[in-house]
């Protein structure tokens, strides 16, 4: 077996400092090999019109190995292995595939036309190459012995995928509430912090965790492969790799609720005049709104609650509402009486929990927050 230098892939980014190649990034090397093999196949058929099959041993003849990792961020030195007696002279085609991929990356960066070999099959290989890269990371596709070349990063990858497939894929890490689960279809739907609902496919083993969370009405964390449209909208998770109960911090970062911050919502009520509700409805004083905003914001942040949807009531209270899978929870804040009436309404049963908090009394604000938090987490 002979070896010859084939490529230097310069991985740049904080994770690769000190010539260290994180284990989770190693699949990039295999994905690079698969990408070049796919391009080589397209090049073969383009140069051999009428051929329906590849020559025997075509794929197996392309063997890459990791010789070493050199410093300069992390630079895996990729070598190509050759049999002592090649079955057929296909070497140039794989070298050409390497050069074509580099040229395509360069073309995308320069907003130039993409090559004809970028079929959906090849685009799918680009989906695997660069999947683990983070926003501040890149791979320089350099020739052997060099450190400069076209830069391949998430942005370039995304544009190539969109050109080839109309969608692109990236690893996702989501926190949300399970809204529906279908064990027969190996799928479920998760509602995210901004109220988007995302379909997720998952193995039966992971679905058991999903169903437990669904029954407990608790948040989960899902990691997997997300499929995005050209505008960057997450369409679905094509396969979940892991599902686990969300931790407190997870809920804080992805808690479901209104996408508009509490102060902004409360502030919007300033514009309501007397008679705002079909001739009824009282205007709010600045003092009432300031009190309501401060109270709600401190409770939401202090107890890591989802951002509520906030509405005025014709009677002059500020009303906050939270939706959970099986509950609707509301808290009305009455500034004039320094009172809060809280209700939790169960949706699938004739059950309602009501509490009144006299907020002028010491400790009642904390009790209000604690009560709401327990309701959100299904502990009360």
């Amino acid at each position: 077996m002979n070896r010859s230098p084939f490529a230097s892939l310069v991985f740049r980014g904080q994770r690769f400092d000190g010539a260290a190649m994180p284990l989770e990034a190693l699949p990039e090397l295999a994905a690079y090999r698969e990408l070049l093999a796919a391009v080589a196949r397209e090049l073969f058929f383009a140069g051999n019109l009428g051929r329906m099959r590849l020559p025997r041993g075509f794929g197996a003849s392309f063997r890459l190995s990791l010789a070493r990792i050199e410093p300069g961020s992390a630079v895996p030195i990729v070598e190509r292995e050759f049999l002592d007696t090649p079955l057929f002279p296909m070497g140039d085609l794989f070298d050409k595939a390497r050069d074509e991929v580099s040229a395509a990356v360069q073309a995308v960066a320069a907003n130039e036309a993409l090559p004809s070999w970028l079929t959906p099959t090849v685009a799918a290989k680009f989906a695997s190459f660069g999947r683990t890269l983070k926003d501040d990371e890149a791979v320089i596709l350099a020739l052997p012995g060099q450190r400069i070349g076209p830069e391949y990063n998430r942005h370039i990858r995304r544009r190539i995928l969109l050109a080839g497939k109309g969608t692109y894929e990236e690893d996702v890490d989501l926190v949300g509430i399970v809204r529906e689960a279908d064990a027969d279809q190996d799928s479920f739907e998760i509602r995210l912090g901004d109220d988007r609902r995302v379909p997720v496919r998952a193995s039966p083993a992971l679905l058991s965790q999903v169903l437990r969370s669904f029954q407990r009405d608790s948040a989960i964390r899902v990691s997997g492969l997300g499929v995005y449209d050209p505008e960057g909208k997450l369409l679905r998770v094509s396969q979940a790799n892991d599902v686990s109960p969300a931790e407190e911090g997870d809920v804080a970062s992805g808690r479901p609720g209104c996408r508009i911050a509490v102060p902004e919502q409360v502030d919007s009520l300033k514009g309501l005049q007397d008679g705002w509700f079909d001739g009824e409805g009282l205007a709010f004083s600045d003092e009432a709104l300031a009190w309501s905003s401060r109270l709600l914001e401190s409770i939401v942040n202090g107890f890591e609650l989802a951002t509520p949807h906030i509405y005025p009531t014709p009677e002059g209270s500020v009303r906050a509402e939270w939706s959970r899978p099986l509950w609707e929870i509301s808290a009305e804040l009455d500034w004039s009486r320094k009172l809060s009436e809280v209700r939790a309404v169960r949706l699938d049963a004739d059950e309602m929990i009501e509490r009144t908090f006299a907020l002028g009394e010491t400790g009642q604000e904390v009790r209000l927050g604690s009560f709401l938090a327990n309701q959100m987490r299904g502990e009360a």
Partner: protein
Amino acid sequence: MATPGNALTDQDELLFRQVHPSFVRDGRVGSQGFRPTPKDQKLLSVAQGSKTTAKAAFELHTECNNLASAGTWAVTLGECQLLSLTVRPDEVTEGDCPDPAHAVVDFSALSSSKIEAQGARLARYANDRGRLHPPDEPRTPNE
């Protein structure tokens, strides 16, 4: 003047509800949108889907009655009945804006707490169904 009509029977019939803009936040209808206010005498106004459309109901409310609406949401007769709420036709025959599709969901037997609970449940049905008119635009996270 409103006149009672024949009872509704189709469980799947949509009952259109116009929701005041102040009761819609970030696309979500608050529970007040689906419960009667004190002036409504515990009767929630809706429009029968068998007699009008979401668009026509919206236009009657905003253009003829000159009232504010963020759009048309809906629940079904079956959903109301599941909550033990009766619905009956209540055609408006007089005035400048006759409304043959007008109907009412009757909350009159309920306490104020119970009215609030049933309103929250109806609003959930309506939110799950989404706004029917004007059609919702695709939302982006930055909206």
